[in-house]
């Protein structure tokens, strides 16, 4: 059904906009009230890249009361994937009859020396897919090719990849391999809390990761570390409401995990998704770009599925790799600097010529700042 911008639908949307502004106004007043009661500057970390993007796009950052700042965290799977992962994918792409199947997000990410985009121009077979299921279907359709699917993403994405590994094993699709770089959020957030360079007074927890893990996955942050947590959705109103809830906790001296995104998130999450993840993957230590190795923060393919593990099958080790000289993506991901503080921001490293993953990824903090942050505001 098409919208008729000039007619009824347009009038309805204009009316909604007017009401929306009233609601936003009420939320801004609520934020200011709580900020006053808190009485000191607070830093809230929005872990998830989509939250960073929406917060900018809707102008929410400009609506925050004085003393309340939002800092972007490491919730961008592409950004935290080490350059070495791209290097390993590139090495595999140079083997005969190998097709690299990847989400679009990784195509322009620089490895130590090259990117998949550049390798494709030089003759590598790189196939962009929307779904891991599409990569598996491709492998089924052409037995002469070895399809290596680059599995990046957090707990939101891992269950879908697990489904393809299970199906590949059951159906013996021997030419479907996965190079696994999945990361999990809770341990990484714990590492940030323990990092004394970074002051975090509250977390806006990732919304879609929580659909899978359940909000209870973050309880330990509130209970053991005393950090207020709110799982927020992705509309502008969701984030505003999430901030109000965090500030309320701080003002009241509480630290809990609350769910703002209750239309999709429960305390326990999606059990079927959790089950298939633990059937196919096991916890491992993982390197996060800029955060170093965080114990128990990665997923590795379990032994029964090792026939489909690309790094074993093709005998390629994923090393950390080398970031571009001067690249401070790591510091941005930890929240210890904001993108404009990086010497390369908007100088050597721009949206059209990114040097680091935070600028390449559409939800990287640097890309968000480059798109939305105006130089006139400082």
């Amino acid at each position, binding site marked *: *059904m098409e919208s008729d911008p000039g007619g009824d639908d347009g009038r309805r949307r204009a009316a*909604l906009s007017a*009401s*929306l502004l*009233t*609601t936003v106004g*009420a*939320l801004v007043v*609520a934020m200011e009230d709580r900020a006053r009661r808190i009485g000191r500057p607070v830093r809230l970390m929005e872990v*998830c*890249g*989509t939250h960073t993007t929406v917060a900018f796009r809707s102008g929410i950052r400009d609506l925050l009361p004085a003393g309340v700042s939002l800092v972007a965290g490491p*919730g*961008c*799977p592409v950004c935290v994937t080490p350059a070495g992962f791209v290097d390993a994918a590139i090495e595999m792409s140079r083997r005969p009859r190998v097709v690299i199947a990847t*989400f679009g997000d990784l195509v322009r990410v620089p490895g130590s020396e090259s990117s998949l985009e550049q390798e494709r121009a030089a003759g590598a077979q790189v196939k962009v897919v*929307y*779904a*891991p*299921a*599409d990569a598996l279907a491709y492998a089924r359709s052409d037995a002469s090719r070895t399809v290596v699917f680059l599995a990046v*993403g*957090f707990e*939101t*994405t891992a*269950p*879908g990849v697990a*489904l393809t590994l299970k199906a590949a094993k059951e159906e013996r699709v021997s030419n479907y391999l996965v190079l696994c770089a999945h990361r999990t959020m809770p341990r990484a957030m714990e590492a940030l809390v323990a990092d004394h360079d970074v002051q975090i007074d509250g977390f806006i927890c*990732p*919304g*879609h*990761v929580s*659909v*899978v893990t359940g909000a209870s996955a973050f309880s330990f942050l509130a209970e053991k570390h005393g950090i207020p947590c709110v799982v927020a959705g992705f509309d502008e*109103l969701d984030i505003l*409401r999430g901030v*109000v*809830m965090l500030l*309320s906790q701080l003002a009241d001296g509480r630290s809990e995990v609350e769910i703002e995104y209750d*239309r*999709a998130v429960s305390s326990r999450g*999606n059990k*079927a*998704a959790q089950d*298939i993840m633990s059937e196919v993957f096991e916890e491992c230590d993982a390197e996060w770009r800029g955060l170093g190795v965080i114990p128990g923060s990665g997923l590795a393919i379990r032994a029964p599925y090792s026939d489909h593990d690309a790094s074993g099958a093709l005998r390629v080790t994923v090393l950390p790799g080398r970031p571009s000289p001067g690249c401070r993506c790591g510091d941005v991901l930890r929240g210890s600097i904001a993108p404009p503080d990086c010497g390369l921001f908007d100088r050597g490293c721009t949206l059209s010529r990114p040097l680091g993953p935070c600028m390449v990824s559409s*939800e990287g903090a640097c890309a968000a700042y480059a798109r939305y942050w105006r130089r006139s505001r400082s």
Partner: protein
Amino acid sequence: MCLAVPAEVTTLAGAKATVSVEGALREVDVSLVEEVAVGDYVLVHAGFALHRWGYAEVLEWRAIQEEMMAGEEPR
């Protein structure tokens, strides 16, 4: 960080469903959500469903949204 959209289930065949986002159709895997029926909505990420809403829940959620738009008090 995880792009996921609500989509309406229009056809169902075992673990696969065709979903519609305002008329854009795509096949997705629904094996990770329970008892999906045509007319339900599912949250779709990378070609699979993470969460399911029954039609009644969707209506309720829309009513809440309208209320929010009309200036409901925040918690």
